[in-house]
């Protein structure tokens, strides 16, 4: 392969290729997958001059060791997992040149769970149903539908050497350690819960458990009480939907969620806050705050405008 860009020297914990997900097939039961933190991946892509939805490498807590097989431009965004080039630490949220033979590795996790390596030209493994995202449970997308292994070689598109040294303004860099509130829009099954149940959900804190993965974040805390049972006729689930099964503990559904589920849905996390949920490590306390659709849409529009503007000025 003459477009070989990266060789995997050490694979890391669950390193995978992800883009913005495989939309359009949920009505056939297909899981969307895609980056857990779509904001970080999009910023990375913009900083290296890619389309926002280009495929990058998702790194989880224990990062891989990768060798560049050609000169290119990269940016690391998302969780700070202490990225290094040839053993020297590099800045996050910034694009920089790297050269053939250089080695990218990661050290101690500082904050967050998921980091993204955006590479100029994007990772160009084959498109499956319009996406390169890896969904391991159905061996679909990415590299043979699996996490990366030692010895894998990843292809990329032609790098663009005009875009480097671009840094995201600190104001826009998320603080994953901050104990802010996660904003939600209540429903669609709000009526399935007692007043006390909703009250607990919106006033108490819920701790992220170790049973948290790409499918969803499982929380525990004061029980969210149902009026009459936790089961519904199987119905649609969206990114950020908060399901509450009979045990009263919320589950926030993320990238690898199934398109449908059978538990009551108390709320859905607003788009802007989904990356913050995804980046929350086990043990972190989450508090929820209900907002109006109007406010959520304003925030969505603001972020969308920001990403569009950034694409133009980089």
């Amino acid at each position, binding site marked *: 392969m003459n477009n070989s860009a990266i060789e995997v020297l050490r694979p890391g914990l669950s390193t995978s290729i992800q883009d913005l997900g495989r*939309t*359009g*097939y*949920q*009505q*056939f*039961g*297909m*899981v969307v997958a895609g980056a857990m933190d779509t904001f970080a991946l999009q910023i990375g892509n913009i900083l290296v001059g890619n389309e926002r939805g280009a495929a990058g490498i998702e790194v989880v807590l224990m990062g891989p060791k990768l060798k560049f097989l050609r000169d290119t431009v990269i940016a690391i965004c998302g969780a700070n997992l202490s990225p290094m080039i040839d053993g020297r630490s590099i800045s996050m949220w910034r694009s920089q040149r790297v050269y053939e033979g250089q080695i990218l590795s990661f050290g101690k996790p500082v904050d967050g769970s998921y980091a993204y390596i955006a590479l100029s030209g994007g990772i160009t493994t084959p498109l*499956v*149903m319009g996406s390169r995202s890896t969904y391991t*449970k*159905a*061996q*679909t*997308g990415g590299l043979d*539908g699996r996490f990366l292994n030692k010895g894998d070689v990843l292809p990329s598109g032609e790098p663009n050497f005009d875009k480097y040294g671009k840094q995201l303004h600190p104001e826009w860099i998320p603080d994953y350690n901050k104990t802010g509130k996660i904003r939600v*829009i209540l*429903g*669609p099954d709000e009526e399935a819960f007692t007043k006390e149940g909703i009250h607990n959900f919106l006033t108490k804190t819920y701790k992220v458990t170790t049973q948290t993965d790409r499918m969803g974040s499982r929380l525990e805390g004061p029980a969210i009480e149902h009026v009459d049972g936790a089961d519904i*006729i*199987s*119905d*649609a689930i*969206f*990114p*950020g*939907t908060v399901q509450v099964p009979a045990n009263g503990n919320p589950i926030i559904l993320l990238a690898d969620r*199934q*398109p*449908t589920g059978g538990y009551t849905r108390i709320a*859905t*996390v*607003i*788009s802007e806050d989904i990356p913050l949920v995804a980046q929350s490590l086990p043990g972190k306390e989450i508090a929820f705050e209900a907002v109006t*659709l109007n406010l*959520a*849409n304003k925030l*969505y*529009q603001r972020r*969308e405008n920001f990403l569009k503007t950034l694409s133009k000025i980089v």
Partner: protein
Amino acid sequence: MFEIQVYGDRGLRITLGDSISKETNDRIRSFSSLLEDENIKGVIEWIPTYTSISIFYDPALISYDSLRERMNSLYENISLIDVPPADVITIPVCYSKEYGPDLTNVSKHNQLTEEEVIKIHTEPDYLIYMMGFSPGFPYLGGMSEKIATPRLSSPRAKIEAGSVGIAGSQTGIYPLESPGGWQIIGRTPLKLYNPKSDHPILLRSGNYIRFTPVTEEEYQTIENAVLMGTYKPKRELFKGGEKG
């Protein structure tokens, strides 16, 4: 029944019924087909289920209020169109001991012979109410209570893709190799999910499937044809009528 709800900041949910029924399923299919023809800018995709359609949209391209208005006016047309025609897809199943290790359980539980279980299982056309759970998995309705059997008390760690099973009064097919507690009575050589194919998912909601028994030899022949990409599942127009 027609109710529209906010579902998160990128979702709109339409309730079209309050229980699992063919009538509701017909309305959902009609509405889906109107939605498909409309090709609304900003609508990314939708998920039809037993009683609802949930639309995922991009609020930067269309607002909730204007999408809701479009949905209301679409609904006015629902009675004007015919329910789209449905196909019946024949699913060959080998009900052997090897492929159907729990066929004996099901026959004993219902005091039937294994032949009778197969006969009852292959009799009806099963309506695909919705897809979900895993890629290509059909939620089927219409299985006879005569062969209803509880799930295994201890689930298997591994069930092969294509396994056909019974759980309570439901029947289904595993599209992927996975753990599971269904009573496995046979296996189909067809791939319900094949990401390498141009049509990665074999089934869709609103259609019907019909199981037909095949021998182990026929299973092998079909499996080879499927691998070669030359197998065309039998598809015919559903003519209605509730068999079985």
